[in-house]
């Protein structure tokens, strides 16, 4: 295997990991506030179709990212109103959001079938990416660099800011946070909105970074993997980054198995490669959940409705 081939693989892996990373980061913050939103897949699809439509109409991928984030946040508010204001069951509401987002994106995306869009071009001048090292460092979509910045920002926010401390307090002990005067519901609304916005961007990364074409249900279950990833990462942004790249790599193997055939399919039939990320998720969840490092890290109020006694 040549170095150039490995670089090409690396670039594909980065592309495949970015959507999961965005969506996972958003869900991590949501869950840290004590809310389990299982609607990630639906919010990603809504973000994807909103982003695709924006590029298709305006040709501006930057605007598409903003619109995708707004669309993801907007649709997450349906979940927030139901679970936070009306104390609806979070598991069921999250599922409803996924069903809704899947239907809405398919319906809205119908007219874009077959349209190609102009995806992001790299932000760095071409000469920087001329040699191999430059290529590894500078040849990605701006969204990729943005995802790394967001990992750092989320870590900093959760661990080094007062607002992050409040958010964690709300997730660990909602009644105490409420009794010392913080708005539990307000904090959770904000956390759900952030999760929605990040899922929206993650969804938009499919057409903007991976393949500049519209396809029905193009996220293919990556939203669910992002939720599993948060557990896998023990609610820590750094480990989430590593996990996203691990699953990105597994997803990439499927592409290479389909494209290059024999070498891969001698080991495992191509549908087996396609199933691998999901099987690996189950195995990873089993290992992490069984160990003390994983299961014990979950925010104490995760998934529980908050009903002030007044």
């Amino acid at each position, binding site marked *: 295997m040549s170095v150039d081939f490995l670089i090409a693989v690396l670039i594909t892996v980065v592309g495949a990991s970015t959507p999961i990373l965005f969506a996972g980061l958003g869900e991590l913050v949501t869950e840290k506030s004590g809310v389990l939103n*299982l609607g990630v897949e639906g919010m990603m699809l809504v973000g994807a179709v909103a982003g695709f439509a924006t590029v298709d109409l305006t040709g501006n991928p930057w605007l598409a990212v903003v619109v995708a984030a707004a669309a993801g946040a907007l649709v997450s508010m*349906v979940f927030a*109103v*139901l679970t936070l204001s*009306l*104390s*609806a*069951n979070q*598991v*069921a*509401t999250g*599922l*409803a*959001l996924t*069903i*809704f987002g*899947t*239907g*809405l994106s*398919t*319906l*809205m995306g*119908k007219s874009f079938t077959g349209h190609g869009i102009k995806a992001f071009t790299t932000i760095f001048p071409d000469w920087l990416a001329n040699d191999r090292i430059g290529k590894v460092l500078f040849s990605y979509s701006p969204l990729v660099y943005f995802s790394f910045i967001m990992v750092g920002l989320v870590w900093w926010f959760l661990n080094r800011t007062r607002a992050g401390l409040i958010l964690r307090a709300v997730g660990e002990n909602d009644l105490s946070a409420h009794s010392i005067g913080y708005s539990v519901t307000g904090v959770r609304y904000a956390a759900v909105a952030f999760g929605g916005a990040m899922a929206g961007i993650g969804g938009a990364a499919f057409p903007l970074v991976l393949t500049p074409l519209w396809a*029905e249900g193009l996220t293919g*279950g990556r939203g*669910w*993997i992002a*939720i*599993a990833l948060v*557990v896998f990462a023990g609610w820590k942004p750094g480990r989430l980054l590593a996990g996203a790249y691990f699953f990105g790599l597994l997803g990439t193997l499927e592409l290479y198995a389909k494209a290059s055939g024999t070498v891969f399919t001698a080991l495992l*039939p191509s*549908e*087996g490669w*396609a*199933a691998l990320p*999901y*099987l690996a*998720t*189950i195995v990873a*969840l*089993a*290992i992490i*959940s*069984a160990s003390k490092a994983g*299961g014990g890290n979950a925010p104490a109020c995760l998934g529980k409705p908050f009903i002030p006694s007044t």
Partner: protein
Amino acid sequence: MRLKFEKRAEPSRFMLYATPVGAVLLTMLVGAIIFTAIGYNGFGAVYQVFIAPLALSYKWGDIAVKASPLILIGVGLAVGNRAAIWNIGAEGQYIVGALAGTGIGILTKDMHGPWILPLMLVAGMVGGAAWGAVPALLRNRFNVNEVLSSLMLTYVAVHLMNQLVTGPWKDPMGFSFPQTALITADQMLPILVPGTYVHLGIVITLIIAVALWFLMSRSLMGFQVRVVGSAPSAARHGGFSQKQTVWLVFLLSGALAGLAGIFEVTGPFQQMSLGFPQNYGFTAIIVAFLGRLNPLGVILAGIVLAITYVGGDLAQSVLQLPNASKGIFQALMLFFLLASDILIRYRVRLVGAPAPAAVPARSPAE
């Protein structure tokens, strides 16, 4: 002026039964508005999706055929949700059950006898239960969240099915279409109403639903499931095992989903193909909630959702409404139902203002 929620002394039984009806009606109204807003004939869409299948008597058979898997999977999920154990992977158990039964069908394709069909049905149940056993084992052994594991297994099931119907199980006489051979006469469910697809499985489904209603409301098993779900610590003190309940829920709902899968193969489909999964496993989650987790309610809810399946097809052919639209209607139904849950335990009052101003009627959109 604001809304105030006052806790009721005890849950309202009226609201328990009225809210699902309200949710369906609101879905029709809001659905019409949404579809009008995005440029379709909104009221026409609602008519096609919800009313037309009932108005056209020749569609009733279709409704029954589509309601059967929704009810069968839905009653299983209702038991699980009662225990607050979440089987989101019924779609996978449905597929694997169908695969297991189809496997028996392929092995017995040259044989004859009345034992073949029952064997296929049993294989379907075993296949579904086995696929459901994995999340149960993972939850009990390794503390793995069953929502995620059961869902991941659905994707694995789809790829397993794709591999089999495009590879070893592909019909050798099928002009290389990705599908299995048609089942034989000995493998078919008897048709009850000539000229329709109304098959024996529908009757079995109804018997199972009524039996589960009896078990859930009258037996110790039903009591155990409800206590584990609503009062976990009381369940522990009462000697009801959480782990045992997890097994019970997944084996039961998995077996029923698997049975639904093999009913589809031996009934309307007569083979397996890439288009076999119809999302019944996911829609059944809505059915379970809309039926208030009561097996008798699930029968009614299954019929309502089956109407949207039949109506979705009608809307597609009559109004060129994309098939995805029925998913939006179905999700809206669940949203409204979940939103209205609060009315069961709380009374809503408007406080701090005189009588609310009348809401202006919505003018018909252009």
